[in-house]
């Protein structure tokens, strides 16, 4: 609890000292499994700030909303490790002015994925959740379940190696540097081991679900185009129908558009109302970007985004011999 208190205290101080006009953080949501974004402009609101397992939203998405809505404001923002990388990436991409943002890191131990929770309850509604740090207890009509916290964590968190902000102005507590994670690429490697047609069958089943609501895109801090390519119609890049090829190509291109820019925060996957395992492709791309170009998105505030850069002696194993 002291962490949240410290966070609240920090927000109050920043506001009191007029270092910021606004602080973006989470507050308790209207549903037991949800937190919701909170925009604090006065000190008395600061006590609503929370940070817990429900705080999955990557709040840096708000910087680019409505064409850089905060461009004339000093903004404080609470960030998990992944969110911080989004902020850095958006700084590199000139969407955020480093001087106008106070990056406030919070110690992250993973956020939940609602789908995993509902799998646990067989779809039964959750009316209360208690997280004691190791175990999570769910309560609903006629049931109570307890299990290891890791079982409901978002797939992004299970593969995370930078839980805490690597670039920040304030950190609530002690920030951890890179942490080891053996399982980081386990799922990707497992999928790669399947046959091409198995992979295809799998992908097809997933992406056929897409209803083109674009929640994945809109919660993504790296997706800030004024008009997304898929919405452009002169020329129209691809169809907006739910036909599988249209959806698949939308997702392939979106993945390429966030190549070297995706911080693997998992917001897209958590936002998807159709439970598509969106992050899988993102992580595959991020893995290639790391392997081939040595880049991890949003880690180096003095770097260059991977896809705006090149090295002459890069691996080109995919070029016909």
């Amino acid at each position, binding site marked *: 609890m002291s962490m949240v208190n410290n966070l609240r205290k920090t927000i109050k101080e920043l506001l009191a000292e007029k270092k910021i006009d606004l602080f973006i953080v989470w507050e308790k949501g209207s549903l037991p499994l949800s937190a919701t974004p909170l925009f604090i402009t006065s000190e008395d609101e600061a006590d609503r700030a929370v940070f817990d397992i429900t705080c999955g939203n990557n709040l840096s998405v*708000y910087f680019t909303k409505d064409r850089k809505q905060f461009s004339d404001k000093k903004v404080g923002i609470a960030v998990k490790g992944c969110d911080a990388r989004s902020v850095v990436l958006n700084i590199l991409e000139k969407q955020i002015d480093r001087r106008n943002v106070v990056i406030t890191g919070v110690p992250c131990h993973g956020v939940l994925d609602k789908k995993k929770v509902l799998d646990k309850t067989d779809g039964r509604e959750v009316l209360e959740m208690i997280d004691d740090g190791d175990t999570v207890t769910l309560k609903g009509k006629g049931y109570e379940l307890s299990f290891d916290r890791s079982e409901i964590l978002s797939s992004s968190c299970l593969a995370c190696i930078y839980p805490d902000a690597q670039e920040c102005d304030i950190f609530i507590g002690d920030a951890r540097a890179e942490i080891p994670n053996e399982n980081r690429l386990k799922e990707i490697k497992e999928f790669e081991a399947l046959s091409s047609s198995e992979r295809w069958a799998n992908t097809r089943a997933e992406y056929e679900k897409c209803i*083109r609501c674009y*929640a994945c895109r*809109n*919660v993504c801090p790296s997706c800030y185009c004024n008009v997304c390519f898929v919405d452009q119609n002169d020329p129209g890049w691809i169809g907006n129908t739910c036909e599988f090829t249209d959806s698949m190509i939308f997702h392939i291109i979106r993945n390429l558009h966030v190549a070297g820019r995706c911080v693997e925060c998992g917001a897209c996957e958590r936002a998807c109302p159709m439970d598509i395992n969106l992050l899988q492709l993102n992580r595959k791309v991020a893995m290639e970007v790391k392997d081939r170009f040595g880049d991890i998105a949003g880690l180096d505030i003095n770097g260059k985004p991977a896809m705006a850069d090149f090295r002459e002696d890069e691996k080109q194993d995919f070029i016909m011999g």
Partner: protein
Amino acid sequence: MKMVRLDKQKFNDFIRELSVEYSVYAPGKVSGKTGFIPVESGDEIDFTSTVTDMSAKSIFFPHSEVLFEYDEDGIRAAQTSHRPIAVWGMRSCDARSLVMLDRVFGSAVQMPEDEKFQDPYWKEKYNTSLIFGCACNEPLSTCFCNWFGGGPYNNDGMDVSVVDAGDVYLMEPVSEKGTDIIGKLSCYKDAAEEDKALAAKLASDADSMMIAPPDTDGLGERLTALFDEAVWEEISAKCVNCGACTFSCPTCHCFDMQDEGKGSRGKRVRIWDSCMFPIFTMEASGHNPRALSSARVRQRVMHKYSYYPENYGETLCTGCGRCVMVCPVNLDIREVLKRINVYNEQEK
């Protein structure tokens, strides 16, 4: 009207019998998500969820629908199946939504009576359809159907009202079509008095589980009065303008038309659109009357609770709670409406 009872063991026979004349849709799972799927037997039905993930509107108003095709030889209407549709297991919120949508597609109030445009694609399907509703015995915490004249046992939009009473389904026709079909099918028996009593008990239990609604009287007028207020910026601040709410909503019905063609061949497709998307209102000139997120969020709220009620006398929201569940930033429409109430009283 008479109530009949269907032994759940005979449910498969019932569906089979229904399938002779109808294409039957019922709640089912596709890749883990629930929605209404075509079924041929009761085994394919998954009736575990109170509210399916996707609403039933896509049966009559699909996400992408070919309107016509063209080539060098001319234009041809899209090929459609002529079998009538029967839907099993529609909750009251979804059934009510069809009534709301039918007004738009079939009897738009803006048009003079004799010129009313009947959308053939909707009408063809909807007019011949048969809706077996299913009352909710255990409404969810996200359900708010009771806010706008509905309720877990509301029958609006149904042809047959169904109550899940343990081992049996209790069915009661609530329309002519419903009476006809109940008369035609064979696999059930007349309900007993106890059945009727049980149904009434279940209904009142369900009603009592609903949280009392806030004051929604005059909501439309209140909203209209707030049109230019800053409250919309506050409400919309967290909205990321995706279409999860509109696409999961049983009553949202905005669409875009797109031509897909190659050389001289092609087709025109009607595709769901969302007022949340910036390009929804983008004009050819480049001007966008709803360029900002706040204007779009306001539009959605106004359409549901002010404009539509103005035209048709009831809200364009059945309180199914799907938008509450899917919103990635937990922008809860119930909180929005409460905030409107409070803003009216306190801050305006």
